[in-house]
């Protein structure tokens, strides 16, 4: 009878593993001080299932001093570098205690770089056991069947290449993040005496460069004119839009001559063509595919999608989400998953249909991942009430999975050609003849059907209207969270697990002003300064090369030491250059910071005096904020406007439609609304104000009742 210690990544995963591995599926929960574990019985063995809380150990510099360069590090318990991580201490103590009673060790963390490192560090530092003795469970879902199989067929040793890759990635990211952030921050301190953390990192620099390059294109954009011929014909009492063959005409004169030639004329149908095309189902979701689709349909930021998917995974509702794979291997019993999904009333009809008339095997995408299959439902039904966001994402994953088995859809495209002299127009339409997989993926697919009237060659139609509309070209669009994430993936920057947080970090660190990734003055200053003095920090090629070398360590083509030495040497050179120019860099960043604060505080020109600037001011007496004129102190203008006391204020570049005053946006948590600075007096907002006061009165009454 052996005692086996099983280390999982999170409490929710530990519970699932314990439930699956206990013979009676009734593990005992044992509470220790500040932590807990599960005790299971299996084949006369006792299994202790413990959990980590993500990373229990972090890197800490060994030389003292908040300065740079600092290259020497060691692994220490997380609470030594993060004061708030007090919950880690009892977990480490528990693992250490149970390891002394155990004869065998199994790592059951997520099967990826981070998971492998978490398990390895717990074994090495908390248990202090011979690492060669430990086995590794490998699974992609937290279902009972898969966890049992993963335990029985556990790999005989830890996945050391993944561990080495994880270790290296942490060290490289620590070296670059800590040293570069300190360099930037200390340069500001030297220039202005302020201690303001300004950060950058190995991937954040190139990401900032991508956004800055796009911003430059937008800011220096000059629109140019072109004309579009818009025509309409009458067919059976209906007005139909017709498309001129040339989509853009470059001069007004030419556009007008087309209109003159067609005014009041007739068009003859010269051709009616129809084409049929089969449309195959979409491929299985990998993480970036899911993030992109969730952004498109629900507006979820990539980081939010990942967090929700992680919850669904821990509930054993979907498979492991951090995957690049777009393939579902034959080893997964997809028929059984479909049958289980069919037990949920919501999916019963589509599952029944797909089981009867769909494909035997799902369609597959091109991308692969050696560790995990594409994201798919496990077949389990939710055992708790899902939040609306979870419900949406779960539904998306389920419907995409069912659609993989659907037959091809059949689309018919029709093009009617109309002619007058040399002028050609088209009427275009399309419709779905056979719905196939669309039937199952319906809410998430837009086919844009457009009906075409029944017309035959030789039919003559009178032009009801023809005009030349002047338009101008538009600049490239700003990135959104989803398109920036895709660009990072295309450029080979970051990993599937880190890209979403890198995208978020640009805003949280003040480099962009809003969700449209408009660069702030600080973002410009950081970009320009780094570009001028240390361009390697912004270089995508440099980061990509490092990324490639780290992957080669995972594949055993390079050693960890080799890559780490190279990374340290490059960083050392960069930091040397930086130190030489520290003062100049600091001065440029200080100017950028001043601009950034101005951007956030300045509302616009004062409407009362027309000379001063409206700024957000905090009263020194009450601490309350309001908007006032910059000429207030000199006694030149007493214009003030009240502000809500909670939430972040962002000045908008537009005026109120009712009173013409400057508009602002107020954001509180996930909520945000727009109003004008004159909201208390604005004639268009009195109803809103009345409702707000009513709500405040109700809340006050409620609070009063509760306190009695």
């Amino acid at each position: 009878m052996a005692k086996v210690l099983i280390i999982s990544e999170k409490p929710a995963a530990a519970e699932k593993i314990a439930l699956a591995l206990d013979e009676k599926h009734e593990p005992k929960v044992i509470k220790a001080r500040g932590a807990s574990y599960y005790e299971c019985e299996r084949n006369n063995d006792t299994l202790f299932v413990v959990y980590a809380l993500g990373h229990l150990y972090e890197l800490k510099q060994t030389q003292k001093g908040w300065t740079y360069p600092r290259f020497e590090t060691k692994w220490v318990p997380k609470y030594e570098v993060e004061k708030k991580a007090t919950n880690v201490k009892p977990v480490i103590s528990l693992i250490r205690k149970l390891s002394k009673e155990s004869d065998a060790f199994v790592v059951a963390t997520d099967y990826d770089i981070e998971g492998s490192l978490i398990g390895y560090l717990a074994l090495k530092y908390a248990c202090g056991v011979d690492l060669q003795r430990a086995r590794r469970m490998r699974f992609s879902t937290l279902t009972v069947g898969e966890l049992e199989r993963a335990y029985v067929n556990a790999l005989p040793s830890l996945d050391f290449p993944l561990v080495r890759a994880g270790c290296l990635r942490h060290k490289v990211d620590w070296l670059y993040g800590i040293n570069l952030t300190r360099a930037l921050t200390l340069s500001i301190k030297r220039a202005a005496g302020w201690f303001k953390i300004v950060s950058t990192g190995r991937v954040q620099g190139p990401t900032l460069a991508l956004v800055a390059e796009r911003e430059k294109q937008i800011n220096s954009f000059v629109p140019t004119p072109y004309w579009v011929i818009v025509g309409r014909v009458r067919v059976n009492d209906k007005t139909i839009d017709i498309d001129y063959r040339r989509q853009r005409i470059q001069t007004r004169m030419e556009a007008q001559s087309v209109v003159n030639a067609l005014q009041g004329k007739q068009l003859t149908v010269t051709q009616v063509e129809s084409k049929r095309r089969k449309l195959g189902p979409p491929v299985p979701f990998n993480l970036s595919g899911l993030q992109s689709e969730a952004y498109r349909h629900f507006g979820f930021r990539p980081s939010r999608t990942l967090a929700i998917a992680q919850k669904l995974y821990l509930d054993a509702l979907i498979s492991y989400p951090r995957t690049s794979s777009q393939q579902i291997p034959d080893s997964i019993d997809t028929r059984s998953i479909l049958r289980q999904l069919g037990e949920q009333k919501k999916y019963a009809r589509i599952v029944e249909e797909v089981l009867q008339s769909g494909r035997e095997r799902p369609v597959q995408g091109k991308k692969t991942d050696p560790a995990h299959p594409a994201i798919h439902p496990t077949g389990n039904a939710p055992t708790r009430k899902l939040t609306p966001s979870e419900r949406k994402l779960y539904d998306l994953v389920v419907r995409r999975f069912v659609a993989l088995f659907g037959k091809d859809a059949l689309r018919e495209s029709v093009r009617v050609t109309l002619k007058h002299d040399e002028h050609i127009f088209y009427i275009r339409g399309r419709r779905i003849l056979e719905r196939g997989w669309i039937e199952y993926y319906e809410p998430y697919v837009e086919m844009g059907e457009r009906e075409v009237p029944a017309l035959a060659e030789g039919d003559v139609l009178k032009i009801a209207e023809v005009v030349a509309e002047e338009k101008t070209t538009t600049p490239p669009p700003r990135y959104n969270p989803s398109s920036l994430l895709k660009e990072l993936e295309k450029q080979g920057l970051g990993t599937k697990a880190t890209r979403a947080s890198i995208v978020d970090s640009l805003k949280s660190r003040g480099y962009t002003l809003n969700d449209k990734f408009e660069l702030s003055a600080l973002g410009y200053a950081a970009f320009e300064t780094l570009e001028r003095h240390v361009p390697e920090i912004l270089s995508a090629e440099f980061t990509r090369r490092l990324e490639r070398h780290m992957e080669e360590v995972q594949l055993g083509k390079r050693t960890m030491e080799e890559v780490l030495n190279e990374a340290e040497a490059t960083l050392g050179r960069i930091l040397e250059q930086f130190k030489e120019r520290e003062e100049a860099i600091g001065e440029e960043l200080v100017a950028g910071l001043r601009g950034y604060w101005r951007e956030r505080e300045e509302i616009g020109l004062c409407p009362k005096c027309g000379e001063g600037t409206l700024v957000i001011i905090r009263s020194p007496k009450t601490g309350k904020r309001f908007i006032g004129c910059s000429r207030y102190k000199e006694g030149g203008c007493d214009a003030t406007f009240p502000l809500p006391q909670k939430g972040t204020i962002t000045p908008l570049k537009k005026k109120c439609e009712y009173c013409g005053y400057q508009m602002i946006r107020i954001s509180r948590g996930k909520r945000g609304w727009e109003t004008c600075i004159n909201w208390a007096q604005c004639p268009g907002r009195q109803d809103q104000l009345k409702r707000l006061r009513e709500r405040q009165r109700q809340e006050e009454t409620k609070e009063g009742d509760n306190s009695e």
Partner: protein
Amino acid sequence: MSECRICGREPVDGRYCRYHRVAFDNLREKYAVWKEAAGVSWDDYLERLRQNPETGRWVLELIEDLMTEDDPSVTA
């Protein structure tokens, strides 16, 4: 001049920084397109760009700067 007339950055041509210089080059280059397409005068061109929401921020700043000159057409 030691500072860009518009933003105070280091000038690259004695007048504008590298960003406003790019905007200036674009503005001049695209005038030929506008003239050919719509037959507009330089002043009309600047005014139409000012009214257009797609015009870039640096271009707008540049236009404001050009319009404060005694004879903005000189630069064209």
